């Protein structure tokens, strides 16, 4: 492989008539990366994914894969494979035939392609279900089959369009772990579109937060969470309080703030407790501060119950100056 074994997006733009869905984004995703495109609906993340997949034409800009321009190549010749949100398993074909579909299109004989398909089914723990029809499988099982079908083409990048959104919460977390395991074992890039920041934080090596067709911030999940660049990122990724100070806005993580029942020495922000939400390991206390509006403070359950606060109580908020992180306008 060349020195630049990566997927590169260069000034990638998608316009639908007068509306710009994706606006000249630049991004490099090294091979073997689990990348998450994160953002609210309509932020351009799906359009970006579909352009990489070749299911959406590029209005302007380029997509390079290992320094090769793939912008106008058909989907199957890009080294990518896509897993659709609805899975799009062919309803008239058995699980094995679904997985073997790409080999059939290439003219591989039946015995070889079915054997290979069964190997892939083994990989996703679906070997016993090879002869079923997609409708006879649960959502999670269908997803595994869709995964096998995408992987049989030996892609160097797997594109996943909100792969977990159709699953129930319990299954979602299980499949999440499994996706990560597969990506690590296969050593290929996964590009995963999601609107769930939990999912992105849990899975990604590299998070790309999008908003209004642009990239707001990208980087390792820890950086994005710890140091959100803009107010949008801080709000979207969650876990932050936004404070409007005289010299610009600041973000402070909700778990970096502490609630004091008595006025401490030095500076502290007076506030009133409005709600207490018990979350098991944490307790979220919503307070209203006259200077900053509604804020949330996350307190560990032990600390909270050692000195509980009540709704309506007057408290003081305190945080270390180094935990206040200034945001770009």
């Amino acid at each position, binding site marked *: 492989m060349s020195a630049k074994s990566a997927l590169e997006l260069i000034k990638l733009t998608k316009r639908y008539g007068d509306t710009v869905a994706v606006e000249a984004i630049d991004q490099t995703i090294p091979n073997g990366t689990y990348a998450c495109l994160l953002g609210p609906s309509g932020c351009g993340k799906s359009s970006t994914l579909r352009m990489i997949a070749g*299911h959406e034409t590029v209005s302007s800009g380029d997509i390079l894969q290992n320094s090769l321009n793939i912008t106008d190549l058909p*989907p199957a010749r890009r080294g990518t494979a896509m897993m659709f949100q609805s899975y799009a398993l062919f309803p008239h074909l058995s699980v094995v035939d679904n997985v073997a579909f790409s080999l059939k*299109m290439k003219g591989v004989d039946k015995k070889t392609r079915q054997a290979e398909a069964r190997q892939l089914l083994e990989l996703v723990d679906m070997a016993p279900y090879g002869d079923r*029809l997609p*409708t006879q499988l649960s959502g999670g099982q269908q997803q595994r089959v869709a995964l096998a079908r995408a992987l049989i083409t030996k892609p160097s990048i797997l594109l996943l369009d909100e792969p977990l959104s159709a699953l129930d919460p319990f299954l979602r977390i299980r499949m999440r772990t499994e996706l990560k395991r597969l990506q690590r074992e296969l050593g290929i890039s996964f590009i995963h579109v999601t609107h769930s920041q939990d999912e992105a934080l849990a899975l990604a090596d590299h998070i790309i937060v999008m908003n209004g067709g642009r990239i707001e911030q990208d980087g390792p999940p820890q950086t994005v969470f710890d140091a959100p660049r803009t107010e949008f990122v801080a709000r979207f990724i969650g876990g932050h309080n936004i404070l409007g100070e005289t010299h610009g806005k600041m973000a402070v993580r909700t778990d970096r703030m502490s609630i004091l029942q008595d006025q401490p020495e030095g500076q502290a922000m007076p506030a009133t407790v409005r709600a207490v939400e018990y979350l098991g390991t944490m307790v979220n206390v919503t307070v209203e501060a006259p200077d900053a509006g509604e804020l949330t403070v996350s307190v560990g359950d032990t600390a909270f119950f050692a000195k509980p606060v009540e709704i309506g109580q007057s408290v003081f908020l305190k945080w270390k100056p180094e935990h206040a992180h200034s945001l770009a306008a």
Partner: protein
Amino acid sequence: MEARPRSFYFLAAFFVLFLIFLYGPTITIAILSFQGPQGGLTFPMRGVSLHWFHELFQQQAVGDIWGSFARSFVLGLMVMVTTVVVSVMGGLAFRKRFPGSAVIFYLIITSLVIPSILISLGVGLIFSQSGLTVHWSTSGFGSQLTWTLPFGLLIMFAVFNRFDKSYEEAARDQGASAWQTIWHVVLPIIAPMLIGVALFGFTLSYDEFARTLLTAGSYNTLPLEIFGMTTNVTTPVIFALGTLTTGFSLIIIAVFLITVLVLNRRRARLGSDAGKGMV
């Protein structure tokens, strides 16, 4: 059991009346076709026999029953195949808006609202004026298509409206060419609906009267033949013919339904674990 409101009985009675109105004539004809050899065109029944069915297979004084049946059958198949093929292609074309698509759509639909007999007259005139032979397999065929194609196309609109585009994207993603996508993915998925379109095409053609009236030429299709016979034939043989053709239509419908059923069964069996040999 819960007490039914009075409106239930009223509506039920109304519905029964409707059913009688709908099927009464057919059933009456079916009963009368078993009229005894001495019986006439109306009640009372003078005995019960298969005499008139037997008579149907004899040389008729008026009417070429079996010839016209064969023509109707072949024409039905021609119309059926053409309707399916053209509707699918049209349905695929109309999935994307193209310049003039709205105009073409309305032109197609217009032929549904023009009175059938006018179309028949027009097609017949065009053929005879341009020196072409007016024949059931040419002018008659074309004239019937003005009826079945718009219907077929409308059905395909409904089919493709509900068709999930991601199937095609997935196929393309998997390296299928445009043809392979149609052949291996789109057509198999819409196959059950195509059977419906086929059945539609066939039955619409098989009982079409007005559109074939002035376009069939010298050889009649079955509906035309039956109509001719009603004015000339004075025996219950015409009832026997009616019963037989109705039965034939029912058989055709049954064949199509069974085909769908068998297709579904085969798919379902594929998936069940019962009797699964090691493959």
